């Protein structure tokens, strides 16, 4: 295994932005549409370099806004190209209406998102407000917690997208991951993923064989077309499991849909998503050393929601503290993951105390000490039924 690994991988110091670019290159994308000014990231800079060097044969389409970036991706994908785009923060917001069109037209676009806070007040820092706003857009959503996972997830995303014909978003922490350099194994062999993400025939825009895409649907057909998206999202669940397991078998790295860490024999599980999971794991190690029975888990696939994995996690958990880096204002429990977990538990008649914490908004620092304090508060069970805005100055 070691020798095989050495011959196909090169270990490089990369930020998550660069890991995205390498993954798009190694997925052999055909078209990249990007608004090249802030909040764009270094993802498309690196991709431009790959195109200029001849390492990637693709068309870079510079557009005047993110709205146009997604429009161009939709056009390219409809014409049969393997389309890729990248954005962040307000850029994702500006794309919003097109996100529905991409998924409604069942186009297998893959997009990376460096998850960041939203204005106002203006913040260039990280949280998940942008990504959580897209929950209802019918995009499959993966949230990675390391640069390696970002790389692997982009490749997996094409396998999922092109099997189920829904677009996939791969999100990761703005700044805390997008600008942090860490070791990543990238393919050293051209075409390593060729069989994993094969070119499949599909219905495309072709003047010789005309089809209509994105047509008007009157009340007699709109509902059925939307229901097909529901079925597709449901199929995406199994396909996401398959894509990860096959990737793991072929390339030696897999993540599952929910990652667990020291959950056995715990009195409390800290559940979160994204890069903060690393800090949580570190805090769990430190607490375990002191004999505090705490475990951790993270949701890697946010859409479709990983019901089976979370159900199995909850059946092992005595209490759960959910850390959200976003909030849905106006709800007593406002953390998106906490809300969805509670709704799921209700459907499955699972009754475990769930405590909702809002942390790291606009990149407010979260350290191991914060995690330990949250854990000891949650273990005391003297926790509000409503979301706790951790560390906020009232």
């Amino acid at each position, binding site marked *: 295994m070691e020798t095989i690994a050495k011959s196909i991988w090169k*270990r490089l110091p990369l930020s998550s932005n660069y890991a995205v670019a390498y993954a798009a290159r190694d997925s052999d994308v055909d078209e990249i549409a990007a608004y090249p000014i802030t909040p764009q990231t270094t993802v498309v800079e690196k991709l431009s370099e790959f195109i200029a060097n001849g390492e990637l044969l693709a068309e870079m389409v510079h557009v005047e806004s993110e709205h146009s970036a997604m429009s161009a991706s939709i056009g390219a994908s409809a014409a049969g190209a393997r389309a890729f785009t990248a954005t962040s923060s307000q850029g994702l917001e500006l794309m919003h209406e097109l996100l529905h069109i991409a998924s409604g037209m069942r186009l297998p676009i893959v997009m990376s998102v460096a998850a960041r806070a939203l204005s106002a007040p203006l913040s*260039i820092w990280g949280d998940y407000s942008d990504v959580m706003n897209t929950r209802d857009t019918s995009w499959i959503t993966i949230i990675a917690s390391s640069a390696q996972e970002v790389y692997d997830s982009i490749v997996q995303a094409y396998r999922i997208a092109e099997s189920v014909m829904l677009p996939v978003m791969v999100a990761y922490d703005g700044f805390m991951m997008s600008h942090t*350099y860490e*070791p990543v194994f990238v393919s050293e062999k051209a075409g390593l993923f060729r069989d994993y993400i094969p070119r499949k025939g599909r219905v495309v825009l072709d003047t010789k064989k005309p089809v209509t895409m994105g047509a008007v649907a009157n009340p007699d057909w709109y509902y059925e077309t939307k229901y097909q998206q529901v079925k597709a999202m449901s199929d995406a669940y199994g396909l996401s499991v398959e894509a990860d397991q096959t990737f793991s078998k072929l390339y030696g790295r897999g993540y599952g849909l929910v990652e667990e860490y020291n959950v056995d024999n715990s009195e409390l599980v800290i559940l979160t998503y994204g890069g903060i999971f*690393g800090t949580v794991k*570190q805090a769990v190690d430190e607490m375990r050393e002191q004999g505090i029975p705490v475990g951790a888990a993270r949701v890697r696939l946010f859409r479709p929601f990983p019901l089976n994995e979370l159900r199995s996690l909850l059946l092992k958990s005595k209490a759960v503290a959910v850390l959200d880096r976003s909030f849905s204002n106006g709800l007593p429990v406002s953390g998106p993951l906490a809300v969805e977990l509670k709704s799921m538990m209700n459907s499955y008649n699972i009754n475990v105390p769930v405590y909702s914490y809002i942390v790291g908004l606009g990149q407010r620092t979260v350290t191991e000490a914060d995690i330990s304090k949250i854990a000891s508060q949650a273990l005391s069970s003297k926790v509000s039924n409503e979301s706790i805005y951790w560390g906020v100055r009232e």
Partner: protein
Amino acid sequence: MPLRTIIRPILHTSFELRWHGRGGQGAVTAAIIVAEAAIFDEKYAQAFPEFGAERRGAPVKAYTRVSEQQILTRSPIIAPDMVVVLDTSIDEKIYLDGLKVGGTILINSSKGKSELKEKIEREDVMIAKVDATHIAMDELGAAIVNTAMVGALIKVTPLAKLDSVSEAIRENFKPKIAEANVKAAGRAYNEVEVLN
């Protein structure tokens, strides 16, 4: 005076570094070069800037973690094992903030031992100094001291091999200026002094 090398062994936990410079001096690039070089040496490393708007001349912080094991945490470095100061005009309160007891300061300075010790006022810390501005002016013709400071750093604390640092420099700079920077790093590696 012979240099004391391998002053601090790399422990199982991460070795945490904080960089202090001013916008334009290349503190962020230095933090990345050290992480890259450590990764080339099959170690684990993380490098990240202090996130914020970038302005030339403004005080800048950057961070590097190096470890023999996978690094889990993504929290900022609050209590560094070492600080590297690219610009002496930065207030010592800023760069001494949180420095661990028994930690190390590597400073770009042409000043003597007594003057630096008086300024730093911490008996527990080890002070290393190198005149990186002088080296950078000689080798690059500009006071961009980051690569010289990296060279000095890996002599004081062997986080990466000098060859790996040279490789990382070549990855980060255009060929025209890469070799001068490699030379600056090598000179600083030889010229850095430990003061106590």
